[in-house]
């Protein structure tokens, strides 16, 4: 007996949109057994993981703090992925954005002014976009694979940040510790929910999602992006400028990642440190796909992914489960999503061998 995988003639659109829910459900079920194997009460563990972070005002606000950069980056990435432009280096663009925005904050240290934050945001976006311009240039000029260049530039960005916080941007009063001064109040994002860390960046992330949604569905360039991804031949036939679209997608992704980086240093961190992002740029890739590359879906998946981090912490604190559980959960989520995606598009058929040994 052999198995054969074949493409389905008709792909159900409804099923395609159902897959994230199927994946979440499968993850919960698998998580149930995982917790049982780990010797924890599975109901209690699932409760700690998915419900308890949402029970308090503080938990809810932290969900927003954690989801804001994920959403903002994933929105940009999704735009590129729609056009088959694979920017994997959002982490590096985030870092450069944080560096540029942070440098502005430090340049205006101990000064006050309403213009400082907007200036930081512009610098952060410019920094992220400029960093994404490198893979864009290499891709359009020399046809270098942007997956490789953008990914490798991430490590360069991290080291660049390290050089700065160990050198020119180091706090002169800081006992040689590799971190900048704390930013002044004028360079810190306003808090939108009292007594929490939820900052204005969350609102900006939501607005960015809506803006990109409008861009994709209501503008010519959005149409071109979608065509380039789903029917490259048609796009070429219609005379869409692939080079221009590549630049547009990478720069926009870079700018959004850079803004997310600026918001991290101007929000929850409040200074430049050697480690700014706990892998937001990479997690955002999962967020983008889990959200079906749809801006509104990404808001939901960003919140879900943020929840998985916080749930993991709660499970550690209250149930003494290992931290690796968080990673396993995120991995399962992506695995089940890809698996159900695959099964929506393909089907597995049993074949009877026609010839012995075939």
């Amino acid at each position, binding site marked *: 007996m052999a198995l054969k995988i074949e493409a389905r003639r008709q792909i159900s659109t409804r099923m395609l949109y159902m897959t994230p829910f199927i994946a979440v459900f499968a993850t919960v079920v698998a998580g149930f057994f995982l917790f049982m194997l780990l010797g924890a009460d599975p109901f209690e563990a699932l409760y700690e993981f998915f419900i308890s972070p949402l029970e*308090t005002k*503080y938990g809810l606000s*932290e969900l927003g*703090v*954690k989801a804001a950069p994920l959403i903002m980056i994933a929105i940009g990435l999704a735009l590129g992925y729609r056009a088959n432009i694979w920017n994997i280096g959002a982490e590096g663009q985030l870092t450069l954005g944080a560096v540029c925005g942070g440098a502005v904050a430090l340049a205006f240290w101990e000064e006050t002014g309403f213009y400082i934050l907007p200036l930081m945001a512009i610098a952060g976006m410019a920094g992220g976009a400029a960093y994404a311009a490198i893979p864009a240039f290499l891709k359009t000029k020399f046809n270098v694979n942007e997956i490789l260049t953008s990914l490798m530039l991430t490590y360069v960005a*991290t*080291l660049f940040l*390290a050089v700065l916080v*160990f050198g020119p941007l180091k706090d002169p*009063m800081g*006992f*040689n*510790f*590799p*971190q900048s001064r*704390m930013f002044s109040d004028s360079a810190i994002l306003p808090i939108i929910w009292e007594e929490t*860390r939820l900052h204005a960046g969350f609102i900006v992330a939501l607005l960015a999602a809506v803006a990109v949604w409008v861009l994709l569905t209501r503008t010519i360039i959005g149409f071109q992006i979608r065509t380039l991804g789903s029917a490259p031949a048609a796009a070429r036939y219609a005379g869409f400028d692939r080079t221009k679209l590549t630049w547009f997608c990478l720069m926009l992704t870079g700018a959004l990642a850079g803004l997310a980086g600026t918001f*991290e240093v101007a*929000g*929850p*961190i*409040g*200074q430049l*440190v*050697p*480690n*700014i*992002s*706990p892998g937001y740029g990479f997690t955002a890739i999962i967020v983008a796909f889990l959200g079906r590359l749809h801006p509104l879906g990404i808001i939901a998946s960003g919140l879900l992914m943020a929840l998985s*981090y*916080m749930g993991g*912490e*709660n499970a*550690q*604190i*209250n149930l*003494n489960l*290992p*931290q690796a559980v968080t990673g396993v959960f995120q991995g399962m989520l992506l695995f089940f999503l890809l698996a159900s995606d695959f099964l929506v598009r393909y089907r597995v058929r049993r074949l009877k061998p026609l010839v012995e040994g075939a």
Partner: protein
Amino acid sequence: MIRPIDRRTFIVGSAAAGLTLASGPLQRASAADPLKIGFIYVGPVGDFGWTHGHDLGRKAVEAKFGDLVKTTYVENVAEGPDAERVIRKLAVDGNKLIFTSSFGYMEPTLKVAKAFPKVFFEHATGFKTAPNLSVYNSRFYEGRAVVGHLAGSLTKTGKIGYIASVPIPEVVMGINATAIWARKIRPDAEVKVVWINSWYDPGKEGDAAKALIDQGVDIITQHTDSPAPLQIAEQRGMLGVGQASDMKSFAPKAQLTAIVDEWGPYYIERAQAVLDGTWKTSDTWHGLKEGYLSLAPYGDAVPAELRASADAIKAGIIDGSIHPFTGPIKDQKGEVKVADGAKLADGELLGMNWYVEGVSA
């Protein structure tokens, strides 16, 4: 001194405020209502290095106080935006004493300490204190002096490798102590430093060890937290020194000794202070003498004579007759930084940002 405000004078001022706080609701603590103590770790408890050492300290607290305390830990918390949330979560959950065990938690700890004035915080290896925030650290450089002595005596090539994390004074101090004491035995010894910009990254640590050995290094020392460099030293038939915990099981032949952190006594002392209602802001920087660090039993590669001379240095540091940073000490350019017979003061050590002669970093 780099810092215009002496941190010790600052602490004296804030200690008074700490006293009044300490007599608050904590005295309720009884067997029925255990003192909750939280720990936040930068690495996994299974790193067999830094975090492992802190977790042994946590277990020592549990063993000592039993039902009087309930400890919780969160491992692998990145130094960054997540740290504040985790520390805050521990505070919200009713932990009355919270240990934050990595230098990158300094600002987040300070922020949360301000928001929870009735919770006591303890930050390892930092320098910012508050009425309810103490700092603690160990004089690792004392152990490094002994390690330098061993390495200087045993190196054949005269090249000692040093896998370093991030160039904060604590790490610079350790590199310098190793170099100074190695060169007392072997005046041409060179300490070759590789920075990996991380406290825990077994892959990078191992690669750095390989690169160093390829450059002629025959003894590997490290200020990173995994046993990976030692394992490489073992495989290549070289020697090495364990970090933060006794790593002998990973490199039975290669390990000369290990600098073993002993956080247990400090953690027990601080928990006791909270239980007694006597907790005060403090800045603790203890070493070999107080038992806050120790050296693991010497490996077979250390001959009897060398054991005796190493033990003599250790004993000298403990009784105060030896200060690891006693002049003359020259910097890399050959300029005398510490005059003959002078000793570097703590304040100068805490801001150390220069390398001694013989270090190539």
